[in-house]
């Protein structure tokens, strides 16, 4: 994008005001955090409203505001429908959340589950997958922060990226998961009002019929329901989303943190509320043909159209929405990944005898360390790092079936699970290389299912569920 839409003074003011507000809020929420359960899991007692909002806000990332328009621009109507079906990840996690809480009432991370259920080797492979994904997501969020804030305003990349990381690290550090969840609630409301407002202005300024007619005339392929690559993309995106949610500690930690009997309802609600969002943010991309503006690269179509339609006043909305979307995911990811580092890497590998008071400190240190490490990786602004997240579809989709079979069937053993994840990832990467990003997750998921089924046929481990609750 070449034109700057919001003056840097305004942008700076918004960043500083929101920064102060979030950090003060985080401090206020965290002032009563006494134990590690308070800090990591918000006291394991989160109610329905907060639970639904946090799951939803975390799933609305910079990607929902950027990639949904991009995919609509590239794949047409299937692009936005396919992207919105990523909500199925949240919806299908609902019954799992209930199962997880029932099986592991005292659990902390998804790593706990994998280690107890499948043993050391599978746990190591899982940790590699999970940390690669978390880091890819963190870096892509940090970079998106810098790139977007600089595209929308005069702020430079380094400042935007540093500011968003600093603010998120501060309030997560001060308030733990409570701060993450409460800020998520406010951010969800802001995001929802923002995207609806932007869509409404878009429709009333240009007209939905004009948008449709121009696409039909100039680029009917985007309305084609038999668009091959887009059809391939559809289920791939569903499995990418399911893989992201099923394996990631971001979601497991929420399953542990939500009050008894809340998890299932909350994930279901958040999925249903999330479902329309990619269509609301995505359809505007099709206005490119009416406005006669085309982006230098496909991922900039969203901000470009928004700036064109909304002008300077609207740019404030876009800026706030994007800033909230980034923060609501970044904080969750920081908190959940630091739990993984504390509980799995530190307690699991380095200091097995650490007590909870000690882990409490380690958990705070790892939030800062993780934030700093992400910041370092974001400084060079290597575009390929941002694209790293695309690769991870191959990784995360391989964990879906091992986790699901592991949660519901005693038969599946650790060796099979390890093979399923490793071979699934490998075939996903091959699909990525030979066909395209839009088949990686599907290949990965299919192969890992195949391995799991073979394992279930030849082996019969009678796993004792009791082991999990210890």
């Amino acid at each position, binding site marked *: 994008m070449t034109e700057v839409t919001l003056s840097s003074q305004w942008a700076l003011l918004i960043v500083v005001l929101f920064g102060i507000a979030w950090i003060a809020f985080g401090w206020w929420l965290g002032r009563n955090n006494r134990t590690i359960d308070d800090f990591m899991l918000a006291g394991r007692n989160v109610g329905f409203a907060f639970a639904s909002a946090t799951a939803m806000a975390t799933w609305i990332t910079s990607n929902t505001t950027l990639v949904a328009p991009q995919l609509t621009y590239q794949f047409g109507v299937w692009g936005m429908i396919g992207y919105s079906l990523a909500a199925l990840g949240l919806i299908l996690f609902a019954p799992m959340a209930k199962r997880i809480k029932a099986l592991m009432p005292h659990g902390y991370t998804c790593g706990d589950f994998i280690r107890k259920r499948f043993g050391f080797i599978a746990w190591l492979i899982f940790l590699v997958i999970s940390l690669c994904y978390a880091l890819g997501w963190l870096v892509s969020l940090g970079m998106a922060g810098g790139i977007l804030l600089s595209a929308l305003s005069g702020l430079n990349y380094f400042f935007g990226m540093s500011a968003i990381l600093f603010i998120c690290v501060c309030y997560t550090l001060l308030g733990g998961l409570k701060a993450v969840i409460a800020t998520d609630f406010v951010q969800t409301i802001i995001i929802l009002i923002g995207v609806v407002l932007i869509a409404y202005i878009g429709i009333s300024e240009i007209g939905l019929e004009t948008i449709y007619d121009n696409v039909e005339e100039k680029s009917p392929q985007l309305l084609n329901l038999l668009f091959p*690559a887009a059809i*391939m993309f559809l289920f791939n995106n569903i499995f990418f989303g399911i893989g992201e949610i099923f394996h990631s500690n971001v979601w497991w930690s929420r399953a542990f943190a939500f009050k008894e009997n809340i998890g299932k309802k909350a994930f279901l609600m958040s999925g249903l509320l999330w479902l329309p969002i990619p269509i609301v943010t995505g359809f505007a991309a099709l206005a490119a043909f009416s406005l*006669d503006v*085309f982006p230098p690269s496909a991922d900039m179509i969203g901000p470009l159209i928004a700036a064109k339609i909304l002008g300077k006043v609207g740019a404030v909305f876009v800026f706030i929405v994007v800033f909230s979307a980034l923060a609501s995911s970044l904080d969750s990811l920081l908190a959940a990944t630091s739990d993984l580092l504390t509980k799995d890497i530190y307690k699991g590998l380095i200091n097995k005898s650490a007590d909870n008071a000690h882990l409490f400190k380690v958990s705070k240190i790892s939030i800062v360390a993780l934030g700093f490490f992400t910041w370092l990786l974001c400084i060079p602004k290597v575009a390929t790092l941002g694209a790293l997240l695309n690769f991870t579809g191959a990784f995360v989709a391989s964990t879906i079936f091992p986790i699901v079979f592991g949660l*519901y069937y005693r038969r599946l053993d650790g060796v099979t699970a390890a093979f399923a994840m490793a071979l699934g990832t490998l075939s996903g990467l091959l699909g990525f290389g030979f066909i395209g990003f839009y088949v990686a997750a599907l290949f990965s998921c299919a192969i890992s299912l195949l391995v799991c089924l073979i394992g279930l046929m030849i082996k019969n481990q009678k796993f004792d569920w009791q082991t999990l*609750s210890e």
Partner: protein
Amino acid sequence: MQLFFSRICTKIVILSLLLGISAATALELRPKQQSSSEGYYTLRWEDSGKEITTLEMSPSSDFGTIETQYNVVGMSQISVTGYTNGQYYFRLVDSNGVAVGNPASVTVEHRSLEQALQLFGVGCLLFLILVSILLFGPRQKN
């Protein structure tokens, strides 16, 4: 995909520099030839000081009929989308309506629908398996 693509492009640039075909004199529309299986692709050019205003697309190499004109004022790269199977030719035009630099051609050949539907079927099957485990899977109590 984009990652691979941009790598290939960098390779082309490096290669052309090595061979001495640098774009010092003429404006170069890159890549000169490419193919796309999805109907979207990116074209780049250097800002050479000539005032480029439009990118023209024609289905014939002699640019007899211009089908689409993209407004590219101030840009040095454009991402276009929604193309169906076929051969397309592009050229840059300056503010006087004079074509500058080389033409570039793009071949669009979408993936086979049959293959796509097979993958769709596989996806459907996997999804049904997953849902049925989650809904009807055994619930051994502790």
